[in-house]
């Protein structure tokens, strides 16, 4: 029986428009794009030119500081554009897909016979290494790190998040191969939710399985690490998205880079919320074609409403995105006297609204308004009530705001990622941008320690 870790702090937000447990076929798109910003902390150096022909698996750009870390094309075809923004920052590399997809052959390999160096080298060659993230700093990892452990969380419990078990169906073999490969590099932990029952999860091999029982953010890998083997100064741990584990499994079992993920298309503004198998870099316009309710303006999110990026139809499916959600923007709501009216339709973790009386089954349609003005931190204990980690969230935030590096280290900034503060940002009555603040703190320390 796996170790069960019970978490009490947190908050489940029950949003309208959850994806139904079925998959639709969205078909191929004509153009795909890989976005360097999806790989946090990577400064890209583009290695292709417009007009170049690439196969699926050929590098489009590399990490400037570690050129061996490649990021490969999801499809075969012709590079149509390297889009640059201010100060020539690379925004995305677009590839027009061929009708006949061709894959670079990396050769099938038996993971059991490989050692850590060989596994690492295979991942580097295939352009999958950069998909692995690390703590501290919550950035895409680099080959000079020696992880003390690797953590995979198969639980996605953010509101409207895509259920990983939907993706696992049919990919069980690849998932296990991926775990085998990671366990060659360092001790690997697999965190699963109490309700997850797929055999590929509950009886995965070569990993330590821990069951996390509690409300969101129990599925956040950083929360799990905090309870299993906290990160100390100088430590590095790798965190791997379960979809990436499947990518890795496919690489060893099939010898190809196949960046197909199962994406939930969800949200109250989606006509028929469902799942679909899609390649990283698929245009959101194709994913959401004829599927957005035409009523008021919509907020399209690359990811879930708590941690996802605000996007538009011109954007592309993110590399670490497991769902595309559409919620009302709400910029024309014109709600009268919100400070005193009962507002039965609004959801609040605070009991100053009535949503706590309606039970957990009621679904809410929350729009993208901030619903208040930014203030100094007034209420105490708000952040800590939704942060199930041994960390004083409010004091960490204050340390970051005041640029106090010693305090940040002492209060555990190496253990957190911005998304751990997503719920705190949601409940914050002072409406501070906590995820941005945490990211700035992490960036500052990364620069200091470099």
């Amino acid at each position, binding site marked *: 029986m796996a170790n069960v870790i019970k978490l009490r702090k947190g908050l489940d937000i029950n949003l309208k428009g959850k994806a139904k447990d079925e998959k639709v076929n969205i078909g191929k798109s004509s153009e795909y794009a890989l976005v360097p910003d999806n790989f946090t902390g990577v400064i890209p150096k583009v290695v292709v030119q417009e007009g170049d022909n690439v196969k699926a698996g050929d590098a489009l750009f590399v990490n400037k500081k570690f050129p061996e870390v490649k990021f490969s094309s999801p499809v075969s075809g012709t590079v149509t554009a390297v889009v640059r923004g201010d100060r020539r920052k690379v925004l995305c590399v677009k590839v027009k897909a061929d009708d006949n997809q061709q894959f670079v052959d990396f050769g099938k390999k038996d993971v059991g016979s490989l050692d850590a160096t060989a596994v690492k080298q295979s991942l580097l060659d295939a352009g999958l290494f950069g998909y692995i993230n690390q703590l501290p700093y919550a950035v895409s990892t680099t080959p000079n790190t020696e992880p003390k452990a690797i953590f995979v969380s198969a639980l996605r419990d953010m509101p409207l998040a895509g259920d990983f078990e939907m993706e696992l169906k049919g990919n069980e073999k690849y998932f296990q191969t991926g775990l085998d490969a990671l366990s060659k590099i360092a001790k690997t932990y697999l965190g699963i939710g109490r309700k997850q029952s797929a055999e590929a999860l509950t009886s995965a091999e070569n990993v330590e399985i821990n069951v996390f029982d509690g409300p969101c953010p129990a599925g956040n890998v950083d929360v799990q690490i905090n309870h299993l083997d906290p990160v100390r100064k100088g430590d590095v741990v790798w965190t791997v998205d379960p979809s990436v584990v499947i990518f890795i499994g496919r690489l060893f079992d099939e010898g190809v880079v196949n960046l197909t993920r199962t994406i939930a298309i969800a949200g109250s503004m989606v006509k028929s919320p469902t799942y679909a198998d899609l390649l990283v870099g698929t245009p959101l316009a194709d994913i959401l074609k004829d599927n957005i309710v035409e009523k008021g303006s919509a907020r399209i999110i690359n990811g879930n409403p*708590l941690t996802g990026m605000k996007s538009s139809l011109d954007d592309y499916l993110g590399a670490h995105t497991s769902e595309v959600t559409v919620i009302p923007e709400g910029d024309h*709501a014109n709600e009268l*006297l919100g400070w005193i009216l009962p507002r039965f339709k609004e959801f609040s973790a605070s009991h100053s609204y009535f949503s706590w009386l309606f039970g957990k089954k009621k679904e809410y349609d*929350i729009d993208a308004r901030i*619903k208040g003005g930014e203030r*100094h931190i007034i209420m105490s204990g708000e952040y800590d009530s939704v942060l199930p980690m041994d960390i004083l969230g409010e004091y960490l935030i204050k340390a970051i705001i005041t640029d106090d590096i010693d305090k940040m280290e002492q209060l555990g900034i190496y253990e957190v990622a911005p998304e751990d503060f997503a719920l705190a940002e949601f409940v914050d009555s002072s409406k501070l941008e906590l995820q941005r603040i945490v990211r700035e703190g992490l960036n500052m320390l990364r620069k200091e320690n470099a």
Partner: protein
Amino acid sequence: MSSLRNYLDKIRPNFEKDGKLHAFKSMYDGFDSFLFVPNTTSKVGTNIHDAVDSKRIMSIVVIALMPALFFGMYNIGYQNFKAAGTLADATFWPIFFYGFLAVLPKIIVSYIVGLGIEFAWAQWKHEEIQEGYLVSGILIPMILPVNCPIWIMIIAIAFAVIFAKEIFGGTGMNIFNVALIARAFLFFSYPSKMSGDSVWVANDTILGFGNKLADGITCATPLGQIAQHVTVPCSLSDMFTGFIPGSIGETSVIAIAIGALILLCTNIASWKTMLSVFVGGAIMAIIFKATGSTSIPWYEHLALGGFCFGAVFMATDPVTSARTETGKYIYGFLIGAMAIIIRVLNPGYPEGMMLSILLMNMFAPLIDYCVVQRNISRRMKRLTSNK
């Protein structure tokens, strides 16, 4: 509703930069966000937000204060009619109206002065107007004696808002509770208007309501009388219902309990702070009773004076209280204990709640510092022991 929105949108350009009325931008924003929930949407970070904001929280606190306020109004009339000896002939409404008329000008003036300073300050700093004064503005009249002259109150409010709040950076940054600073200012600057025998019962007619009292009628608070070693002049049930002389909002334990219930149900006040104030007060009072330093039992100590009001509405102010969960227990306990110590051992002041809370406001950051340091050292230990 939409016409109101359209009107606000139409006049908005006047308040923008280079507009004629740019000097009143903060005020326009204040009224706009008071009438309508802002339509601003998130740009980075979470795409959805909780419906709660500081306006909502402050409003709930004001609502929680209402029972105590309305009871206080009634009690003012009650004490006036009682002192005049005409209580038996009076009905509910004249009694209530008398008190209402006595308190209303204080509330209006409090808001005009306090919010006026807030608005001006926000405009000067080019900030949004912060809601903190919504609560302070009603607290200040409620913790003053009914006969406190309004001009004195104006000075106190101006002092408190500017020197206790704005110079620290506004709501959320203040060290001391603003309402208590206003009261402390009066307490030390105008002691004769704030304590003594004559200020606790309104003694003049207002618009034909009430009775003009003769000079020299004794109407001190029970705590004042106890300090002068007079026997307790009221029954325990009077103390709970609140038909005793005292500051406007502080007398009724029942009305304050309703407010406490609202604050606790909505999770706005911390039950940890509130409970530990009572525990601290009770333990200290039991000790003093056992040693013979005080003449009244512990539950009367908790029911009299500003103890309940302070515990429910002042000690739980999230900004000035301890912010760590463990710290809240320590902070509350020391407030309760210190209030009783000041009451019993200090010959000068019959009431100690205000001074005790202000004292602990000062120590709250120290308590938090210790709690945070404990977390840090535990973390350090974990880091070294794991190696």
